[in-house]
């Protein structure tokens, strides 16, 4: 299945008695009730590692686009109303700024590798601390308490998976702990953020800006306040959207399905 459709529930599973395997695109499995599927004897596979590099690239792209005002700048450059480029139209440099990565899994770590080349200071919050060699390779400092990360970061990037524990991980309290000059970047799942609290925080300048590849729902309803805010960049969940990666994802899903149907061990099975 691509994206999160169709919705898999008891009704669907009962109507498909011969279903053996569900192959899901991407790494996130928050849209699947794996226990339920397992109870019907259905195996689940995803496409974890192939999406990591492109998604990390997207995280950096959003971080840079927000800080250097790329979307606004492009609009100015192509607008028929622009007569000259103002000399005092400025952005903020990413070099030397502090990046706080929430969720230092495969994708979070790749973001850290990229950010290091921009001479960013890297903090991270994770369920567990990474090995010393991994930390020193990117100069990342562990923040056992997310509060410490939030208070010190100029950019907060979310790269956790969506679970009951990370649902609304970033709410009003967390946004208020962030610097008023900070930017929130989300490449995880919309529901990791309390979206209403985010809207309020952006409107009241509690934080400076947001750059989101994911929201809830996707797409947002046409009248949603996030679509009107000037200090927000939203992209349509394209973290893994390169032709090469999407083809590999397709191949991996087909491979998992074929193995499942043949009764063989399923590559990338989610247990």
């Amino acid at each position, binding site marked *: 299945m691509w994206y999160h459709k169709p919705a898999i529930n008891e009704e669907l599973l009962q109507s498909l008695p011969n279903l053996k395997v569900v192959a899901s695109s991407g790494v996130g499995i928050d849209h699947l009730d794996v226990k339920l599927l397992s109870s019907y004897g259905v195996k689940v596979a995803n496409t974890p590692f192939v999406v990591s590099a492109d998604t990390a690239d997207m995280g950096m792209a959003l971080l840079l686009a927000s800080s250097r005002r790329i979307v606004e700048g492009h609009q100015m450059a192509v607008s028929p109303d622009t007569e000259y480029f103002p000399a005092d139209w400025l952005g903020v440099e990413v070099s030397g700024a502090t990046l706080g990565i929430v969720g230092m899994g495969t994708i979070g770590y790749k973001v850290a590798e990229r950010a290091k080349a921009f001479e960013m200071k890297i903090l991270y919050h994770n369920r567990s601390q990474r090995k010393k060699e991994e930390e020193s390779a990117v100069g990342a400092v562990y923040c056992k308490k997310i509060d410490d990360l939030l208070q010190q970061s100029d950019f907060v990037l979310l790269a956790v998976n969506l679970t009951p524990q990370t649902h609304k991980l970033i709410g009003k309290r967390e946004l208020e702990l962030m610097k008023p000059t900070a930017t929130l970047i989300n490449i995880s799942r919309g529901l990791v953020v309390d979206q209403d609290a985010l809207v309020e925080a952006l409107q009241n300048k509690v934080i400076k800006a947001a750059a989101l590849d994911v929201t809830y729902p996707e797409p947002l309803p046409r009248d949603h306040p996030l679509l009107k805010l000037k200090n927000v960049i*939203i992209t349509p969940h394209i973290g893994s959207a390169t032709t090469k990666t999407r083809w590999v994802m397709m191949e991996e899903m087909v491979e998992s399905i074929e193995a499942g149907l043949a009764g063989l061990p399923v590559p990338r099975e989610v247990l």
Partner: protein
Amino acid sequence: RGIRVGYTPDVLTDATAELSVALLLSACRRLPEAAQQVRSGGWTTWKPLWMCGYGLSDSTVGIIGLGRIGQAVARRLKPFGVRKFLYTGSGPKPETAAEFGAEFVPLTRLAEESDFVVVTCALTPATQGMCNKDFFGRMKKTSVFVNTSRGAVVNQEDLYNALASGQIAAAGLDVTTPEPLPTDHPLLSLKNCVILPHIGSATYATRSTMAVLAANNLLAGLRGEPMPHELKL
């Protein structure tokens, strides 16, 4: 006429390199286009190949002009999984190139083999109009062209034709001729061309440093003293 000239090199290297990478990513991942689709309601359902761009993993990056800014760009691109760096210019720079394992090649080979071309050279009689029909004709259909040097290094008509006909996949330009482009310029109508208003060095920190340096150059000049950064004429 005996007029001395001061300028502000070096202090804007990081800001400009950063902007070059930001522009490259915005172009290859179609950021402004995608953001526009979200706002305009063009994003209805999700499809696997919709809004797909090009990734940097395993790519070949060609840098035209491996000077201070070119090097800073290469340094920032390296951890994105770039497999190979190529560069071209007036001559090889082995000590600099060693940091990236970059290979010195003729302009034609750089065009033919690069997935991403980044122009960070100075504008001189030799580089004027260098990126032209022949250059774009050699580039891959899947390649992305980024210019943060000077508009005049690029033959804009040839670039337009290359983008419109699918000869190259996308372009990112921080500089054009003139700036801004006239409102009816064909480059402005292309979805696969990201244009920025010459903001390479446009950060609060860098422009402040530049301004102070420029003022110090001026004061030194007025006092008949050596300038912090004087252009040798």
